[in-house]
């Protein structure tokens, strides 16, 4: 009888850290052939339109960056939190908190000097997301409430807060739809490349990535977060204030997600609607895992996902494969990445007895 046993293996050399995610992406793309074929799409044509739709023309390429921006931010938010083992599944709600605050500020700040408006909106959105994330962090550190469940539930609370406001005080006067008034001109992100939607938020998200990389690698706080995420008991023993570390991690993580919300509002929609986020907060989880929780990894994996999402639109138009294939590929990518990560530490031993 053949038996499989999973046993520890010798650690892989450093290059594995880069090769593994790339291999996972390739494997995912290959697996994506299954749903494509099931949808009756012609395989090579589908792949072609997928990539062409994302990278083939100048507009498409810039659009890919536009789509990557919120994904990069939520991916960073989740990666930063997971690194300290703060299981932030609430990036979606934190994103909405940021968008909501940006709306309130962006609609009502018309009378102050225009040059101040955008910074206030951005900072406000960041703080809103950060504060929303600090609630489950407080619950976790002071009351031992599981962060997975609490961050999840708070997503729905925030959705309903948004709904209550959009059908209430924030609703555009005269409209019967749940939408807000438009934000003032000064609160809109400037478009940086003509004839495209390439906006300031993209630069902000890239800068955010650099800042997070710097925090992680060079600061005492980054070291403390890493220690807390590795072994909270030993970190506590070593004198680290673990409560403070988790709270600040939540603030930054939620703030990043909040920035994603600000971006969607101030660069694309210009007013708040219920569907302002198609699940970016949840995608952030996949992106963070695929990027191995490292900022640069998150950058590349957010680009990968953006290619898939943007490309899927074109692919869908040209081949009839439903756009939801993007979500299917996301889910598959996560599982493939997990499996590949596993095999960096373990291997299968076949025993014949």
């Amino acid at each position, binding site marked *: 009888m053949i038996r499989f046993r999973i046993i520890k293996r010798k650690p892989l050399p450093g290059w594995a850290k880069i090769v593994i995610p790339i291999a996972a992406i390739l494997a995912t793309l290959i697996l994506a052939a299954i749903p494509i074929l*099931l949808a009756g799409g012609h395989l090579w044509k589908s792949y072609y339109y997928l990539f062409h739709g994302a990278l083939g023309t100048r507009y498409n390429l810039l659009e890919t960056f536009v789509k990557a921006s919120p994904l990069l931010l939520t991916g960073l938010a989740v990666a930063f939190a997971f690194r300290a083992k703060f299981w932030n599944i609430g990036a979606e709600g934190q994103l909405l908190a940021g968008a909501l605050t940006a709306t309130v500020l962006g609609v009502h700040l018309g009378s102050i000097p225009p040059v101040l408006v955008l910074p206030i909106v951005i900072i406000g959105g960041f703080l809103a997301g950060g504060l929303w994330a600090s609630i489950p962090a407080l619950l976790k550190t002071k009351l031992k409430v599981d962060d*997975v469940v609490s961050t999840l*539930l708070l997503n729905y609370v925030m959705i309903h807060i948004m709904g209550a406001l959009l059908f209430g005080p924030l609703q555009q006067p005269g409209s019967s739809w749940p939408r807000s008034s438009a934000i003032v001109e000064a609160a809109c992100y400037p478009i940086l490349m003509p004839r495209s939607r390439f906006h300031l938020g993209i630069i902000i998200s890239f800068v955010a990535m650099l800042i997070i990389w710097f925090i992680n690698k060079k600061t005492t706080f980054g070291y403390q977060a890493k220690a807390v995420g590795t072994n909270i008991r030993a970190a506590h023993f070593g004198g680290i204030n673990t409560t403070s570390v988790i709270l600040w991690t939540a603030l930054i993580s939620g703030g990043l997600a909040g920035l994603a919300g600000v971006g969607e509002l101030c660069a694309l929609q210009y007013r708040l609607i219920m569907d302002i986020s198609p699940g970016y907060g949840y995608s952030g989880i996949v992106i963070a895992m695929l990027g191995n929780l490292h900022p640069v990894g998150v950058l590349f994996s957010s680009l990968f996902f953006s290619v898939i999402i943007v490309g899927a639109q074109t692919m869908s138009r040209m081949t009839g494969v*439903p756009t939801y294939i993007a979500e299917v590929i996301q889910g598959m990518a996560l*599982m493939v990445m*997990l499996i590949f990560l596993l095999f960096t530490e373990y291997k299968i031993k076949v025993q014949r007895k």
Partner: protein
Amino acid sequence: MIAEFLDLAFISGLMGATMRMATPIIFAALGEILTERAGVLNLGIEGIMLMGAMTGFVFTYSSGSIWFGVFAAACVGMLLGFLMALLSVNLGLSQHVSGLGITLFATGLAMFIYRLHFGSPTVPPIIQPFKQVALPVLSKIPVIGTGLFTQYTLTYIAWLLVPALSILLYKTTIGLKIRTVGENPVVADTVGVNVALTRTLCLVAGGALMGIGGAFLTLAHQNMFLIDVIGGRGWVAIAMVIFGNWNPLKATIGALIFGFLDGLQLRLQSIGVVLSFHLFLMIPYLLTIIALIGVSRRAAVPAGLLKPYRREEKGG
């Protein structure tokens, strides 16, 4: 307004709504209790419920038979439960992330398949949903007769499953094995219980229940499939498991409270209470969080929860 509250029709309507709204959560929570008692946290619950809802709907639409739809939903739930087992039990991957991966994958898959099957019609396809069944004698009792005993068959099944699961867990040899696997898999292994098999079976059976819970929403509660049909009820079920201290009966009470609030907010709107219905929709989630705070103090977490079990971990 008080008069309206005390109106018997209102009360009995509210009771009925409570049971209805609680049903999918009861199914899902029972499924989750089964898997968590065996030591696995299944965060794929929301995705499994959605796949169950979609599968049940599609199969009912194509075959004309509602029960076939329920059956198909259960099968899909089992398959996804099995996938979760492969990832978290056999491969020993992080349970948190495997489960979320399954939710993301299953959510995308559900929408993908639905769109494949139906395209984007202007009028959403509908089916003939379950009809409520009035229990022979009991439904004649005033007030609670129409409230409690005129329900969908699936709801009655949920009621029966609660004591059934309790008996299984606490009074049978299988239940003792499951609980031991969840508390201390080393112990179970040394007395000859196959830890991986037990966890896999619990995941599969739990998945079936979750699938049925999801199908309830498209086959009884409503008669169509919408993307947000589950609406976070899977996560509420997870919270109810914690709230109920991993006990089927207590988790069901939590589900009933949720169902009560869900039903209440609809009714309050209809009698003209002017409060944004969104605020009402928020209350169940807030209450769940508050309940979690109270419960986290004295939680009887299965001690082996979240830890993958591998025999040859240590060296010598």
